[in-house]
């Protein structure tokens, strides 16, 4: 029964995101070089690779932070390469950052509420007087935010400013804020970076739960191989800007190119996990 918890049980849906032949150069540095990946809806795909392999750059191009030099990124039939981040967010793509980017003076609740901004339609004036549509909207959004607070077990921190929270909890708040967007596609940039083992296990659990509860497509960048192998449906491996392998966790682990380029020498899975 517990086997059900691991990846691989999400029914593969339609192709949701197609990244084709995308490149990004910074001066002489080829951050991303002609990478092609397609992601099905409801999938949990991990992008791994050594430092500087171009993982975050790839994510930044999807979320509109960077403009790709060449290539196209199509999300649900819409070309998004080169779109502004706000436009990408409005289409239903949310992300978290490698370095926490919360508003530290604001409470947990307000930070998550901000994630609902995309869905708010009331104008400045009616919001200011908090009347009619604005009030109704606020209540509806708050209800959704409370669901997320419950989901991520943040009840006791609602009214706390995020600046005082432990690192692992701030990461969780960031995830909540991304989820507040009701994203179809969630980009997670090292959500477990800098966490201790217990925090990592909690976070892995939350990511899986998100994936299963709302069938949210997830692209995950993560360094902890044990976690990646455990929860991913599929893995893409980048090295020096190029995609060198793609497949199920098992296939990727056995791929000689991956072992050579990324893992260095041939290691057993246990060693990799350690």
């Amino acid at each position, binding site marked *: 029964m517990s086997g059900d918890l691991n990846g691989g049980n999400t029914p593969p849906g339609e192709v949701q995101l197609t990244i084709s032949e995308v490149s990004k150069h910074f001066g002489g540095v080829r951050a991303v070089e002609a990478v092609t990946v397609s992601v099905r809806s409801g999938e949990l795909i991990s992008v791994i690779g050594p430092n500087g392999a171009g993982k975050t750059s790839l994510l930044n191009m999807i979320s509109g932070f960077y403009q790709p030099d060449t290539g196209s990124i199509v999300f649900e039939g819409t070309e998004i390469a080169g779109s502004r981040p706000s436009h990408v967010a409005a289409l239903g793509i949310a992300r978290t950052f490698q370095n926490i980017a919360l508003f530290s003076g604001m409470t947990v609740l307000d930070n998550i509420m901000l994630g609902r901004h995309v869905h708010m339609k009331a104008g400045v004036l009616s919001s200011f007087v908090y009347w009619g549509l604005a009030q109704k909207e606020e209540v509806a959004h708050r209800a959704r935010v409370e669901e997320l607070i419950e989901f991520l*077990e943040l009840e006791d921190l*609602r009214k706390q400013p995020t600046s005082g929270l432990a690192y692992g909890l701030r990461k969780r708040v960031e995830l909540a804020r991304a989820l507040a967007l009701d994203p179809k596609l969630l980009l997670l940039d090292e959500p477990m970076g800098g966490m201790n083992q217990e925090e990592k296990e909690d976070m892995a659990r939350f990511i899986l739960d998100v994936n*299963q509860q709302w069938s949210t497509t997830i692209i995950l960048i993560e360094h902890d191989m044990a976690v990646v192998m455990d929860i991913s449906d599929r893995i893409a491996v980048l090295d020096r800007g190029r995609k060198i392998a793609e497949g199920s966790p098992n296939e990727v682990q056995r791929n000689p190119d991956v072992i050579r380029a990324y893992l260095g020498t041939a290691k057993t899975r246990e060693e990799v996990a350690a």
Partner: protein
Amino acid sequence: MTVSTLPRLLRRNAETMASRPAMREKNHGIWETFSWAQYWAEVRDFALGLAAQGVCRGDKLAVIGDNRPRLYWAQLAAQCLGGTAVPMYQDSIATELVFVLDHAEVSVVVAEDQEQVEKILSLKRELPRLRLIVYDDARGLRHYRSADLQSFDQVQAAGRDFGALHPGFVEAEIDKGEPGDLALLTYTSGTTGRPKGVMLSHANLLTSATGFVEAEDIRATDELLCYLPMAWIGDSLFSLVLTLLVGFTCNCPERPQTVQRDLRELGPTIAIAPPRIWENMLTQLRVRAADSTPFKRSLFEFFRSLAEQAEARKAEGKPVPPIRRLGLVLGEILVYAPVRDQLGLRRARWVYTGGAPLGPDTFRFFRSFGINIKQVWGSTELAGLASLQPDRQADPDTVGCVIPGTEVRIAEDGEVLIRSAAVFKGYYKQSDATRETITEDGWFRTGDSGFVDRRGHLVIIDRARDVGKLADGTPFAPQFIENKLKFSPYIAEAVAFGDQRSFVAAIVAVDLTTVGNWGERHNLAYTSFQDLSAKHEVRRLISEEIAEVNVSLPRAAQIRRFLLLNKEFDADDNEITRTRKIRRRFVAEKYAAIVEAFYRGDPEVEVTTEITYEDGRKARLTSTIVIEDVFEPAEPAREPAYA
């Protein structure tokens, strides 16, 4: 009594107070209310759902999780069908769970969430009688596919279908119920050996509750926060039996971590908690006082000592001088009322402490701050409680008068014996133990030694087995000394030794929060509990605390040697019970090396401890711990409070 089972009380409440609030649950940040009519409808639908799946008279239904309305409803649903509820500790490890579920022959488990469901599923192979697992919170369980795993909603929906075909089914089952039916099977936390299943009938529970209501003015408008382990008889008595009898409102907190805030929001009018909770509250209060500005701190300390002195005078029956009384009025405005508000006890008419004796100093502290704390005494075998302190007669040394309908007798060896209709039916499948505990003429041996004082108050000295004598013949009551020690904010737990020995020695576990906080203020870097406990600065701090405690102890009972244990006492390691009572014998055996070293006069001792992780894995920890001598035993300042 016309109404004689819990389900009948529920039906009565659903008719006579249909729209009054029976329960509240904080959900999504909002308190949601369930009326008695809704309470009954929920219980009925769930009972129908159980019946549809073949649950019948005599079946056992276990609940495991934090205090959730549905877990209470499930217990009542089982009782509606003539079954028995088995509440369990939510933090039990797998081996404990499997023992209880197997021993109690449980056929249905209602679990709060995925965490609990997974624990049960991992044990399923060892539990052939388990037919159905029901969960409350579906999160993370979406992809489990199994016919014997169902959501609470599913069971209720099936129940409504079943009810449409069999109108009046549950009502008829309730009418078949007898007061003598087994209502609750509660496993004692067991300060000794394996847990024992205490069988309590509807009549047992209602006798205890009725006696309590006769002694105390509990009203339908009262509010209670249910946050104590559901497996503790104190919670069953209040959140299940008393609420049904009286009709007051039970409030379930949002999450264990939010209890303090929920308490403050709600301002319950009655509260019951074991000493541990009150000790924690006091500790937190002191930490916050120590962390505040020097002005606020001195204000707090000034009014605190003023209140404690006034309380001491009142206890001695002396009048408080007018100037002090004026000070108390000022203190009420500046300190006492705000503190009560912060603790969420602003509206509390009574708060009770029970389950173990509360240290007299902690007790006096709360009373002096205007919190009407009273000791109650009882046991699981007495369906909760057997005695409580009347108003205005609350003093820390007694546990008050027995409730109406209860007889008390002191055996020749000093053991307190109780006879009433609340005395349990026996230990489940352990008739030998039952015969040892209930005499032929129906007296229950409580295992506590004590006496009845001039006012008719019961005084409990200690667990009868624990009271001993020092080598020179001085009586030695370890719990009394330990409670004195635990009054120090820096000491979380302590175990005192001294029976048949020449002096008293103690194993102390420091309080990580307060000592850590103290360390921060004194530039003391530490990494872990073990590291902190090994610091000589910390040893000196505790040594000073103990020297202070010694002042209030008779010379012979003063603590001469102690050590700081390198780990906290943990229920997973069997050192304390799930209700946080020290399992003295077990600790004495486990740490025999330390005890020997105490009395050999060794300067240090090598300790190997086994640690059990939450998932049941074990690890060993070996370290050398320094034994500290407490010098300059001071003259006792006042006569000891115990006989």
